[in-house]
């Protein structure tokens, strides 16, 4: 008897409490229909309230950039809110400067739609689209990085600036119940309008990378949203110092290919690529070929822990040390310079410090969190 009573009591109490939560949720969180007014009446949306602004906008076809997919960990989905939606939340403040707080810039993923709202969005956001594509090939470029080539079907052309990124939509799989979005830089050049290539490194436990490495196959239909991002070549005459590691290769490759195709070969370009050992290096021939054809382009791969069998003749050491060495000895000192970085947050911070040492202030990067 007791063996039945115990689970029965616990289940009854739990279901009573669950019912209470559901009822309260239904009553309390029912905000009805709310109106989003974008750019002073330029566009008006009638939507169901209660969800975060970011998700409501994306289901209405307006894609505010977000690298983390709404978890509040990247700070990318900044939106200017013109009506009153209450004070800034503690989850927003770490990503805001004082000026942004004063202008009521908010994180779209953190503000819940409770009543009519007026927001301002930059015009180019309306150009961001959701693309349907077909996975044309998946290639192993190293033991843990795959090159994903996607043919765009609907719409079948993308216009982006080399260096920008898209968000890949990962469908639910295994015990992941919700579609997830993750940001990946485009590694192909913008002249290739009907295809995009992404470089995806396997992160143990990563939702998107595990899916791409284990489940995605050629011929699959995928969705990408984009293009996003402020990481692209600035139109100046300064020397470009580019540093990348791992799958950070992607946007840099796109920028370099784009410059070569458009004949912007008068600028000095130094590309430092950091890897652990030879098995982490890829696309080396591509850049070495380019180096022969393009005198002002310099490709410096560096290994931090070359294995004995690698027989490595090139630079060794952490990429920051190699960068430091080149800035001190090889690269001309007196020309203006710009830094372009892509890699782990740790690498970016370390490189920014090196650049700082040499007074290079114009440093561009996308920090994916």
């Amino acid at each position, binding site marked *: 008897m007791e063996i039945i009573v115990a689970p029965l009591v*616990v289940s009854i109490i739990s279901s009573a409490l669950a019912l*209470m*939560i559901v009822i309260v949720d239904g009553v309390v969180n029912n905000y009805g229909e709310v109106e989003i007014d974008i750019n002073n009446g330029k566009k008006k949306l009638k939507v169901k309230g209660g969800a975060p602004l970011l998700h409501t906008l994306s289901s209405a076809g307006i894609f505010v950039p977000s690298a983390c997919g709404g978890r509040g960990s990247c700070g990318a989905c900044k939106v200017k809110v013109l009506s009153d939606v209450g004070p800034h939340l503690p989850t927003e403040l770490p990503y805001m400067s004082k000026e942004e707080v004063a202008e009521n810039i908010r994180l779209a993923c953190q503000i819940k739609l409770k009543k009519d709202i007026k927001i301002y969005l930059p015009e180019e956001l309306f150009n961001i689209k959701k693309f349907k594509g077909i996975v044309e090939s998946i290639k192993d470029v190293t033991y843990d990085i795959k090159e994903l080539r996607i043919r765009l079907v609907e719409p079948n052309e993308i216009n982006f600036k080399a260096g920008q990124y898209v968000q890949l939509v990962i469908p639910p799989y295994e015990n992941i119940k919700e579609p997830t979005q993750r940001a990946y830089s485009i590694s192909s050049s913008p002249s290739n309008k009907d295809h995009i290539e992404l470089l995806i490194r396997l992160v143990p436990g990563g939702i998107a990378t595990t899916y791409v490495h284990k489940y995605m196959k050629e011929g699959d239909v995928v969705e990408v949203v984009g293009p996003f991002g402020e990481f692209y070549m600035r139109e100046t005459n300064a020397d470009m110092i580019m540093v990348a590691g791992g799958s950070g290769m992607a946007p840099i490759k796109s920028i370099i290919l784009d410059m070569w195709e458009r004949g912007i070969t008068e600028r000095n370009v130094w590309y430092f690529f950091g890897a652990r050992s030879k098995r982490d290096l890829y696309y080396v021939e591509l850049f070495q070929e380019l180096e022969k054809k393009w005198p002002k382009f310099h490709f410096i791969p560096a290994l931090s822990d070359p294995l004995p069998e690698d027989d490595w003749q090139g630079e060794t050491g952490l990429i920051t040390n190699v960068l430091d060495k080149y800035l001190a000895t090889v690269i001309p000192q007196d020309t203006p310079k710009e830094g372009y970085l892509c890699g782990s947050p740790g690498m970016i911070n370390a490189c920014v410090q090196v650049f700082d040492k040499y007074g290079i202030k114009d440093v561009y990067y996308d920090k994916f969190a």
Partner: protein
Amino acid sequence: MIYPNINPLVLFFASIFTSNILLTNFLGMCSFISISKDLKSSNGLGIAVTLVMTITTGLNWILERYVITPLDIGYLRYIIYIIVIAAVVQVLEMIIDRVSPNLYMVLGIFLPLITVNCAILGVALFMQLRNYSFIQSVFFGLGSGIGWWLAIVLLAAIRKKTENAPVPAPLKGVGITLITIGIMAMAFIGFAGMINVQ
């Protein structure tokens, strides 16, 4: 049912001052130490703890009296108490969000933390162990909550002072905080025998 012969009001003050849940039983230490860095947050967490403690103690008393005791399933007490606490926190969070966004701003991130605050479960268990009546339990819960609130605000204020004090380098941060808590506890334990809460 034989309830202990203590005036609920006496119990209320006793659980704030002489039998402070934090400083005499050392329950709820983790959030006590981590949140007390900042006075404003301490205040918010204190209010939230008080609110949840009062409500859950009352609810758990009802379940104890009318479900757990008659069915003789005391061994399920911990599980039942903790799911009640979790559910109440959920519901409170939703209601506060809707009714008072400003209060939600203050409490927002602390409410979910409270689900795992052992002081809340501790108070419910003491209430059962000491065989309090419903009124006594609610006053005990309210008093313990306010006592917790008082203790964390006191500690936050002291920490603000020690921040600029010449603390020996190895003791800076958590070290001096733990010593501070020890001295506070001694001061509170000094009164511990004055009122019998059992």
